[in-house]
């Protein structure tokens, strides 16, 4: 797969929760039309990295640029307008609202700009991508099954027409079959031109579709490489199962 120029760069990002130093000089980049996987054990700082990118957490030091623009200090909604959207961990749908409303809200910035017709077209496109959502358009989103909710969460993020789509644990808590379907959808999205940054517990599944990957440990990037390299790398297994894994 051909990938383009650099879209997102983090260099030397440090971030704190109160006094807790959670990101320690994180540097990574994502090229256009690439799928990049961010791997690591619980508490390694993956989700925090994503929060920092989306401006939900302000880094203490370090630069984050998107399409050549420095985005540190921007408001979250401004980052969304620039073209970064995130599918947060645990879906975070607007449960009491309908499926259609969730999608509409995904396109909030465009609706406010008065581009309603375009948005309605996009909704139809999401329904093509996930037909089950079309069937449940009027249903409360909280009543959907886990897999359907995940589809809706992805659909909502796509409604902003992002240049970079960030997914945080999209397969968490899903049945294996559904998880595979989601992974498939993600690779499909890339082929339609969306750049993707993916955090996933299921490392094998993530790396199966990714071009490149980073492994994080205790707030630092400890490893990076192409997907094939990482899949073969002992360190990756160590990060999940402990270093003695292969030696047993």
């Amino acid at each position, binding site marked *: 797969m051909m990938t383009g120029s650099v879209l997102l760069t983090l260099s030397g990002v440090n971030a704190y929760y109160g006094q807790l130093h959670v990101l320690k000089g994180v540097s990574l980049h994502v090229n256009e039309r690439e799928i990049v996987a961010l791997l690591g054990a619980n508490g390694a700082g993956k989700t925090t990295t994503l929060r920092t990118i*989306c401006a939900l957490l302000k880094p203490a030091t370090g630069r984050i640029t998107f399409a050549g623009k420095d985005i540190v200090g921007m408001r979250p909604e401004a980052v969304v307008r620039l073209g970064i959207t995130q599918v947060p961990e645990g879906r975070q749908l*607007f449960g009491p609202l309908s499926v259609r409303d969730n999608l509409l809200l995904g396109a909030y910035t465009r609706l406010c700009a008065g581009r309603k017709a375009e948005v309605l077209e996009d909704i139809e496109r999401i329904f093509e991508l996930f037909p089950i959502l079309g069937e449940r358009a009027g249903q409360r989103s909280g009543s959907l099954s886990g897999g359907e909710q995940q589809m809706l969460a992805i659909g909502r993020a796509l409604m902003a027409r992002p240049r970079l789509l960030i997914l945080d644990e999209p397969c968490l808590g899903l049945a294996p079959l559904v998880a595979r379907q989601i992974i498939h959808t993600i690779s499909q999205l890339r082929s339609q031109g969306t750049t993707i940054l993916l955090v996933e517990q299921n490392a094998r599944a993530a790396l199966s579709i990714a071009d490149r990957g980073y492994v994080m440990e205790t707030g630092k990037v400890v490893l990076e490489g192409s997907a094939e390299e990482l899949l073969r790398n002992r360190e990756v297994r160590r990060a999940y199962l402990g270093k003695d894994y292969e030696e047993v």
Partner: protein
Amino acid sequence: MSLAELLQYLVTGVTVGSVYGLVALGFTIIYNATGIINFAQGEFVVLGGLIFYSLYVAAHLPLVAALVLAVAAVALIGVLMERLTIRPLINSPVVTLIIITVGVSVLLRGAAKLIWGPEALPVPPFSGEHSLFVGSVAVHLQYLWVLGLTVLAVVGLRLFFDHTIVGKAMQACAINSEAAQLAGISVSRMVQGSFALSAALSALAGIVICPITLASYDGGALLALKGFCGTIIGGLGNGLGAVMGGVIIGILEKLGIGFAPQGYAGYQDAFAFVVLLLMLFIRPSGLFGRQRTEGI
């Protein structure tokens, strides 16, 4: 007690209750957006009535213009309050936020007294001092205004929340503010909007009821407390529940007076709060709220 008497209590109860309901709705909107109980809510009601007095009675503006302007002015005060006192502290513990709204309420009350003086001010009813009589049950024409505007406000709000993107965005912020931010919704603007909306609703309540109750700078506290009861009875965070809760408080209060033995009407406010306490002890999620499971 005769049927006519009973109906009379109901009519008044519903009217007074719908004002409580509007106040309760105001509480709910701010609570949903920020998790704060705004103790200055009663002052919004009062300011609505007083500003309306100035515009309608003193400046002789037409009814609708005075009404709209007064509502807008109070909405602006709500926005200012949010901007100056709530936003800088939004990450503070809830108690601090509650107390700062207390501070604002003291400030607004003082300012209102400074401007409009200590005494109550009379506002003429919108359609004159007349009553309709259904049998021997009297329905003051202003009651119809109160009920009508309440229904209009509630329906309007429903439409706003269900059928406009801004309304939905506001709901989204209340449901999950972080997810809303990730969808590109400016949470701080929505919080500001909710203060404006909440202030406007309370101002409306103050305006429609002041021909019956007179407009007075210190009338806010009691209305706010009753509205507060309504909010809890309806289930904290539930808008329609809050309106219903307010109406229930209104009806119970009037029936309480009706059924109280001679000379015991002094307990009417205690009655409302006893109901509130029972509610809190037995079903704290309110009549219309969903029981929540406690998490970490």
